[in-house]
């Protein structure tokens, strides 16, 4: 089975701090990591390979340093890695990003299943996975929490919903986006780390994947960010003082209106 995993290198959101004087994002010194949701996608890809045979190709679109994320994916069991990088991709929104990734996948040509994390932790849009399937015109199942069956040309999966889950069957090729519940990602093995160090990462640019210049980067992006601002930081409020009886009475008083109406 040919498995493609799409990942994104993101700033570690939990380290993002706001400069209190300028009210802007401090990006310096923030490490880049594989988007947390994509680690489940990588793990699931490797598990499918372990079961059915075949190979896992990991793909990312990003700046040259995104190669680090690909090497990490190799250390976790992916076989091949492709970095899609070009200055022309700068400014891509989710439309252009999913187009670029779909062109990459077209060039890879042989694929049975494409796995993405449900969303990236920096943009939080959850749009690129479904966007890829729409560009490739193949089916999708989002928010997958379990792959029940997967074999040549066929898959049965569980899709997490607000109330529970759905069981969905599909032909392959298929795009799935996965949630945390699907697995517990392994740690890189020593052997994996060695392999990652020596592995060759393919580098493709816009011409390599035969992109239409009007569909990539800023040109290919219908949306424009016109303003960025920091929300007023939430201030810690009032600490209620007193013994249990007193604090409970105070809290109940303060929250009464919220609760009743």
């Amino acid at each position, binding site marked *: 089975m040919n498995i493609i995993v799409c990942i994104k290198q993101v700033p570690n*959101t*939990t380290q*993002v701090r706001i400069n209190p004087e300028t009210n802007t994002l401090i990006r310096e010194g923030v490490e880049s990591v594989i988007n947390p949701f994509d680690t489940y996608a990588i793990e699931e890809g490797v598990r499918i390979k372990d079961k059915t045979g075949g190979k896992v190709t990991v793909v990312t679109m990003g700046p040259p340093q995104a190669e680090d994320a690909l090497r990490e994916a190799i250390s976790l069991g992916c076989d091949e890695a492709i970095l899609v990088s070009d200055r022309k991709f700068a400014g891509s*929104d*989710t*439309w252009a990003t999913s*187009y670029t990734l779909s062109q990459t996948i077209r060039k890879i040509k042989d694929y049975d299943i494409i796995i993405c994390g449900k969303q990236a932790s*920096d*943009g*939080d*849009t*959850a*749009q*690129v996975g*479904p966007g890829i*399937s*729409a*560009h490739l015109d193949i*089916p*999708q*199942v*989002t*928010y997958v929490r379990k792959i029940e069956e997967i074999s040549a040309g066929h898959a049965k999966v569980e*899709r*997490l*919903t*607000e*109330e*529970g889950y*759905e*069981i*969905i*069957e599909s*032909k392959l090729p*298929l795009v799935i986006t996965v949630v*945390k*519940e699907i697995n517990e990602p392994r740690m890189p093995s020593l052997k994996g780390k060695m392999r990652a160090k020596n592995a060759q990462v393919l580098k493709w640019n816009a011409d390599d994947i035969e992109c*239409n210049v*009007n*569909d990539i980067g800023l040109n290919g992006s*219908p*949306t*424009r*960010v*016109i*303003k*960025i*601002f*920091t929300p007023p930081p939430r201030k*810690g*409020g009032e*600490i*209620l003082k007193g013994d*249990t009886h007193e*604090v409970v009475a105070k809290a*109940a008083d303060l*929250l009464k209106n*919220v*609760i*009743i109406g």
Partner: protein
Amino acid sequence: MSKNKERIQVSKEKCVGCRLCVTVCPFSAIAMKEKKAVIDLEKCNLCGACKEICKFKAIDIVDISSQVRFVDINEYKDVWVFCEQKKGVIQSIAHELLGEGRKLADKLGVKLCAVLLGEGFQPKVKDLYARGADIVYLVDDPKLKHYQDDPYTNVIVKLIHEYKPEIFLCGASVIGRSLVSRIAVKINAGLTADCTGLDIDTEKRLLLQTRPAFGGNIMATIISPNHRPQMSTVRHKVMKEAVPNSSRAGKLILKTYDDTVYSSRTKLLDVVEEIEETVNLSEADIIVSGGRGLGGPEYFDMIRELAKVLNGAVGSSRAAVDAGWIPYSHQVGQTGKTVCPKLYIACGISGQIQHLIGMQSSKTILAINKDPDAPIFKVATYGIVGDIFEIVPALTKRFREILKK
């Protein structure tokens, strides 16, 4: 798609009928008619072989992408709201979108339209008029009873092509996010995810879409200047529900399509509900969450009890999920759910940044923790430093009295 962004044309003046292009075309797309080359656009791949071989410069491939991509935005009007339904019930997010959509439509001076797909919904259309819809586009078919990506995408793409809305709003739910991401690609429209604020630039007639990014650390305002409709998914519980007014009337546009439009490449085999409480997290006005401080799965009963009295839902931190005390579907935070209820009560949750990302937009936060330095107190509206095993049951008792339960 890229196929339509260039156009190949043969100049009848320049073509001498030499047939060179016919021989070189790898797709047999060129034939001679009245001694002039004619290209079959169905077969043509725009490879350019004919253009290259032609000695008379009679064949040209022109880039028309700018014409194709930038639709005449003036053709598009009205604000559309996708009304999510589950098991025959229109979801509350639809009422929130109708409330917000009404404001936008009034600012633009256009109609507010509800889009509803399902089975047996004709009697419920009047509820949507009551909530502010001027027009309801209803596609009612047994095949649309449950949400499925393909048929829902196909139907809505057809509706948009035919009726051309300028704005299309949808809930940022599991269904909404899966659906509109596909539609936006299919119709080449801009889509902004998870909006928490919408407004109109009345001068330019543009939808101003504001959303959090980087885990809520920054806010961005986004527009789609040259593409229509302007599409947004909207976060649940942020906009106010439209207040029903049963004297309002509207117009029903009932559409039916060929079976091919309703066909799905995926097959829904079963729908399983497994939320233990009556209220689910994303719908809840009140959430009571437990964390590592609980010390064990059995102590979640205390959390459930308080949630029940408040008619709220049960949430948890990642630590409690990872410890196996409660299923993942209850997890609030970066790798769980993002929630913004009216009241969030955090019990024994220290408030790691990953958790705060998922709940800090709650309107009121009450935190109870024994550690006075716990980061949760930095975002809490009210804090109680103390023992959750004492305070939570006491709170439950007090609220029970107030609510006379």
